[in-house]
């Protein structure tokens, strides 16, 4: 995937499919085995990222849902919602430059990366809002202080866990899965 991204050769469809390959691989090797072992899997991004980002790039919303249909529906999906200015500020303070695809430069909305980011990510956020309703994602105000967000998150997670048996898997209850 890095190969394609570097050459900026990707079209919206190949971009989407290559991320789907990575996801399907994570599903097989990182997500399903721990779930079957009774563990908790924390997935940093899930299919909804693709539903928002790839549709903002122009692929058909039904098509990308089909591509990801082998995925399991999560028990809980937390959506950290943040206004565009804050996310831009956070990204620019952390590093010097916005990434080409993150700024949606491939979509050709603007030649200026910051402006392109603003336009592209606004589209993405708009779609995320629709997805929140469609899939019952739980929005979290990500502009709040981190400890306050964490409180909300823990409460939601606790509700879902209910009487989850902590003794399973010899105390090793959690794994995380992230896109590569």
């Amino acid at each position: 995937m890095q190969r394609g991204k570097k050459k900026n050769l990707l079209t919206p469809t190949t971009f989407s499919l290559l991320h789907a390959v990575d996801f399907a691989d994570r599903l097989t090797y990182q997500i399903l085995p721990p779930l079957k072992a009774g563990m908790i899997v924390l997935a940093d991004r899930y299919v909804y990222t693709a539903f928002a980002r790839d549709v903002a790039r122009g692929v058909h919303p039904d098509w990308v849902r089909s591509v990801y249909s082998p995925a399991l529906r999560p028990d809980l999906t937390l959506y950290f919602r943040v206004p565009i200015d804050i996310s831009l500020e956070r990204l620019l303070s952390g590093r010097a430059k916005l990434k080409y695809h993150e700024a949606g430069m491939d979509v050709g909305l603007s030649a200026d990366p910051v402006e392109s980011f603003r336009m592209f990510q606004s589209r993405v956020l708009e779609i995320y809002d629709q997805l929140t309703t469609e899939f019952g994602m739980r929005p979290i105000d990500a502009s709040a202080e981190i400890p306050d967000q964490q409180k909300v998150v823990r409460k939601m997670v606790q509700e879902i866990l209910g009487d989850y048996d902590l003794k399973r898997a010899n105390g090793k209850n959690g794994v995380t899965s992230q896109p590569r």
Partner: protein
Amino acid sequence: MASRHSHDKTWYGHGLPYVTKKRLPGHLIAIEGTDGVGRSAQIDLLRPWLELEGYAVSNTGWTRSPLLSETINEAKAGHQLTVTTFSLLYAADFADRLEHEILPALQAGFIVIADRYMYTAFARNSVMGADPDWTREVFGMALVPDLVLYLDIDVESLIPRVIMGKGMDYWESGMHLALGTDLFDSFERYQSRLIDEYRRLSSEFGFISVDARLPIEDLQGEIRKHIAEYLSGSNGKSRDNNGASGTKE
């Protein structure tokens, strides 16, 4: 089919919504058939003939995209793939060729000869146990070919041809399916299943089936006959409308 205008192409599913489907005066001809049936030999003979007839010809082949061919070979070598990741890589390779090779060539009025098309993915996935509906939805971005020629062969006739050729390889023998430890037995079983599936697809999608057991020149004659028939049916209109299809490369 013969009465259809050649530029009336349709997407197989949702297509590529961000691509404005311009007029596509070219012709998309897919050559399908199982491993070792002789597709590439036939395509090599087809190209000069079509060029002499005055057509510009462009070839495209399964897993030949600059974007993915290396990745797919590396992944195959690593044996990490599942039927799902396999299918998605094939789909990505296909989409890349569709957008960068097939559509531009069709727009320019070329005859595009595709060595394998989405039906190969349908057949293989079904043999490997993937959900057939899922495979078809993933390939919804494809363009429906104007003509699909299916090189049909039975497994008994295929076997000597493959052995005399480049030999039975791991993948073509379906060793990844663990049907047995014997290469020959696995090849025979895997290829029979594939051929059954291709034949089912042939009737479902209306392929033109040609007998691939014929000697190479006779088979070429058959293929040319069907292509000429298709072209004379569809070209009455498009050739007059568009000089491009008569332009040499």
